[in-house]
C-alpha cells in the first residue's frame, strides 16, 4: 500500500478534532501528577501499548503493524511491564487506573484485550472489533490419551480459574451424571495447569492455545486431545482505547474489517505462531 502525507494528515487532524468533541464520560480519579495531558503528536505513527509477556504478543504486534499499514501509518510500540511478575496469566496484570494512565501518556491503543460483554469494563474504555479469535485447547501428557472422554472419571482435570474455559467446563461437568463427571481442579495460571498435567497430579487440563508456543513447553511431553461434545470457547482479542478516541477506533475497525474479509488476519496467526499449529491434530 502506498503512504500519502495527505491521508496521514487528514487522519491525525480528524482524530484530534473528534477527541475534542467527544462527549464526557466518567474517568477514574487519578492525581494530575500522574497524567501527561499534552497532546502526543506521533508523526506518522499510531502507538500501541503491548504486554510483551502475553502469549499472544507476537500476534498482537504483527496485527498492529498490519492494521497501521492499512491506515497508511507506522506502528510504534510501548512495552507494558507490570509489577506482577507471574507468568501464565491470560490477562494483563495491571489495574484500570494504569490502563488510563497508559492511554493518556504513552499510547493510542492497548493490544491484546479480551472482548467481554456484561459491563465488566468501565465507560471510559472502548474496544475495537476482534483482530484475532483463538481457542482454548485440552491437553494431556504425551502418550496417555487422545480424547478427554478416555480419562477415568475418578481423575481430576485442571482448569484455570476465572477464565471462560473454566466456566464452560464447569457448566459441562454439571450436566453429566454425578458418576460420569470429572472433578474440576482449579488452578491460578496456565503454567500451573501445564505443571500439574506433566507431574501427573491431573490427567488432563485446559489452556489457551498460544501458551503452547512458549519456549518452556516441551512439545514432546504434551499432546492435544479432542473433547467430543464439549465445545471449548475462544478468546476474541481487540484493542482498548479511551472512549474519547471513538473516531480512531472507527478507523481501526474499518481496517480490521477489510483485513478480516481479505483473510490477512487469519493468515497472520498461521505465520506468527507456527508451533501452536504444528501441535494441533
Amino acid at each position: 500500500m502506498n503512504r500519502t502525507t495527505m491521508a496521514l494528515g487528514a487522519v491525525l487532524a480528524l482524530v484530534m478534532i473528534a477527541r475534542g468533541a467527544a462527549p464526557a464520560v466518567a474517568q477514574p480519579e487519578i492525581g494530575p501528577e500522574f497524567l501527561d495531558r499534552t497532546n502526543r503528536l506521533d508523526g506518522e505513527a499510531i502507538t500501541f501499548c503491548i504486554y510483551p509477556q502475553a502469549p499472544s504478543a507476537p500476534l498482537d504486534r504483527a496485527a498492529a503493524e498490519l492494521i497501521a499499514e492499512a491506515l497508511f501509518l507506522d506502528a510504534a510500540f510501548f512495552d507494558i511491564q507490570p509489577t506482577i511478575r507471574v507468568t501464565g496469566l491470560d490477562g494483563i496484570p495491571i489495574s484500570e487506573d494504569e490502563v488510563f494512565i497508559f492511554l493518556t501518556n504513552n499510547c493510542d491503543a492497548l493490544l491484546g484485550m479480551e472482548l467481554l460483554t456484561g459491563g465488566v469494563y468501565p465507560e471510559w474504555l472502548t474496544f475495537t472489533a476482534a483482530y484475532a479469535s483463538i481457542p482454548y485447547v485440552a491437553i494431556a501428557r504425551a502418550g496417555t490419551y487422545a480424547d478427554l472422554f478416555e480419562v477415568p472419571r475418578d481423575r481430576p482435570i485442571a482448569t484455570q480459574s476465572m477464565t471462560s474455559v473454566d466456566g464452560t467446563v464447569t457448566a459441562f461437568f454439571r450436566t453429566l451424571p454425578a458418576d460420569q463427571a470429572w472433578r474440576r481442579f482449579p488452578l491460578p495460571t496456565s503454567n500451573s495447569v501445564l505443571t500439574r498435567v506433566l507431574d501427573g497430579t491431573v490427567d488432563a487440563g485446559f489452556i489457551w492455545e498460544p501458551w503452547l508456543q512458549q519456549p518452556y513447553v516441551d512439545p514432546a511431553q504434551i499432546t492435544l486431545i479432542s473433547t467430543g461434545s464439549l465445545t471449548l470457547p475462544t478468546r476474541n482479542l481487540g484493542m482498548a482505547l479511551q472512549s474519547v478516541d471513538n473516531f480512531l477506533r472507527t478507523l481501526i475497525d474499518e481496517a480490521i474489517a477489510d483485513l478480516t474479509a481479505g483473510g490477512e488476519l487469519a493468515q497472520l496467526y498461521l505465520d506468527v505462531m507456527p508451533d501452536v499449529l504444528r501441535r494441533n491434530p
Partner: protein
Amino acid sequence: MRYRGLLKLAVFGAIAGTPIAATAQTTAFDNWTPVTDEMLANPADGDWLMWRRNYGNWGYSPLDQVNADNVDDLNLAWAVTLDPASNEMTPLVHDGVMFMVQGCDFTQAVDATNGALLWEYRRDVVDHAAGLACGNRNPVLYGDKLYIATHDAFLIALDVRTGEVVWEQQVGDWTIGHHYSGGPQIFGGKLIAGMSGCYYINSRCWISAHDTETGEELWRTYTIPGPGEFGDETWNGVPLEARYGGSAWNAGAYAPELGLIYYGVAVPIPWGSPQRGTGDGDVLYTNSTIAIDEDTGEIVWYFQHMANEYWDLDHPFARMVVDTAVAPTAGEVQWIADDLTPGETRTVVTGIPGKTGIVWTLDAATGDFLWATPTNYQNAMVDVEPENRRGISNPELMVPIGVETFVCPSAGGGINWQSPAYSPQTNAIYAPVNNVCNFYTLNEVTPTIGAHHGSARTRAVIWEGANGNVGAFTAVSVETGEFLWQHIQRAGFGSSVLTTGGGLVVTGDDANLLRVYRATDGEILWEQRVSASLRGYPMTYEVDGTQYIAFPVGGNGRYRARTPEIRFPSGGNMLYVFALPEG
C-alpha cells in the same frame, strides 16, 4: 489565639522539610522513657502506644479534661499537611512525641504540643499492583523503637530518636501482591503482624510473630489450611495453590490473661463458590475470628461468621476484648445462644468484625457463640449454628455466575476498616455503620486487565428502607445488645471512632464534619467542618497537662458516591489537633 504562632511553625516545618536542629531533638526526647510491656498493658493516661490504644482495641482514652461541659470551647492547636498517599493513619504519642506513619510508610516524628518536625523517614515506594497497598493503618511503639509493617511486605524497626532503620525483615513478596495494611502489635513481648494481599496470584495469607530485636520469625499461622490440616476438607479438594484470599487486613487483639491473640480473616477469592470450585464447602478460616496461642501460633479456636460466603463481605476488622456481664435482650437481639446464663460475667470478643455490620459476641476463652445482632440492614447472613461455630450465609443469594442478585450490605460494607470504639463508662460500642446495598453479579471471567481478581460487578444503592440516609452512627450495649441511641443522617460514616473518659464520642463523616457526641445519649456537642472527609483513626493524648484530640483527614468519602450532592475535592490529607484554650 494561643496556637496561631505554633501553627505557623508547624506548617513551615512540614512543608519546607527543614532539618531540625539536634538541640530540638534532644529537648523533645529529654523525657523519653522506653516503652515496656507493662506500659502496653496499662498505658499512661496521656499515651497512645498502639493502634486502638489497648490490647482490647477499645479506641478509648481515660482523659477527661475535655468533656461535655467544655467541648464547645475546643480550638485548633496545630495542624500539618500529610503526605498525599492513601490516608488511614493512627498517630501514636509517648512522652510528648507524636509518630505519624502515613501512606506508603512515610513517617514523621513531631513534637506533640506543636507539630514541629523532629525527624522523618521516607521508604522507597514500590510500584505495587494493589492501589490500596499504601494505606498504613498503624505502627506500634516498644522499647526505643517504632515498628512498622510496610506496603512492600517488610517489618521494620526505626530508632524513635532518629528515625534510622535498626533492622528490617522481609516477610512477604510484594511482586506477587503481598502487602501490610493492618499494622503490627506487640503481644507478649513479640512483634505480631498479619499479611494482606492474597488476591488471585498467591494463595493463603498468614499471621506471624517476630523477635523484636532482630525481626526473626518465631512462628507463622496460615489463615487457610493446607492439605491434611484441620479444615482442609472445607475447600472440597481445591489445590493449595488455588486457595486464595484470607487476608489479615487489620491488627489483632490480645487477652494476656488467656495467652490468646485474636485476628480476623477476610473473604475467600474468587468471591463466588462456583468460581473458586469449592462447592458447598465452608472454606475455613475465611470470614472467621481465629484465636491463636501467643507462644506457638497454634489456632486454639475459631468461629466462622459467614461460611461459604459469596459477596465480598469481609470479616477482618477490629476485634474488641471486654469483660462484661452477658445478658442479651430477647426481642432486641436477633441471635442468642440457647444455653446462655443471662447476667454471667465473661471475657468476650465483641465488636463488628465484618462488613455485614453485625455485632458478634463470643466467649474469649472458648470462642463459644453468645449473641449477635445487626446494626444496619443486611440480608446476607440468615442464621447461626453455634454447635458448628458458623454463621449461615443466605442460600437464596447464592446465585450462579452471571445472574444478578440484591445483597445488603454492599461489597463496600455496612462498615469497612473504620473501627468502632468501646467505652467502659457506658459498656457500649459506638459503630459508624451505613445502609448501602448492591446489585451483585459474579463475573463469568476475569476481565483481561485487572490486578484485582474481578470476581464480580456491583451497582451500589442506598437501602430503600433508609429513606435516603446512608449513615447510621449506632451505640450498642455490650451487655444487652440493645441500641442506646442511633444517629441517622444522609452522609455516610467512613471514619473510625474515639471514646474518652470525658464521656465523649468522636467521629467524622463523608460531609467533612468532625463531630463530638455525648456517649450516653448521642447529643451532638460540637462539630467542626474540616478540609476533607474524616479518615484514619482519631486519638487523644496529654502533654504537660493539656489534653489534645487528633484527627487525620483526607481522601474521598467512602460512601459519597451514593450521595452525589455531597461533593468536595479529593485529597487534602491533613492532621488536625484540637485542645481547649489555655486557662
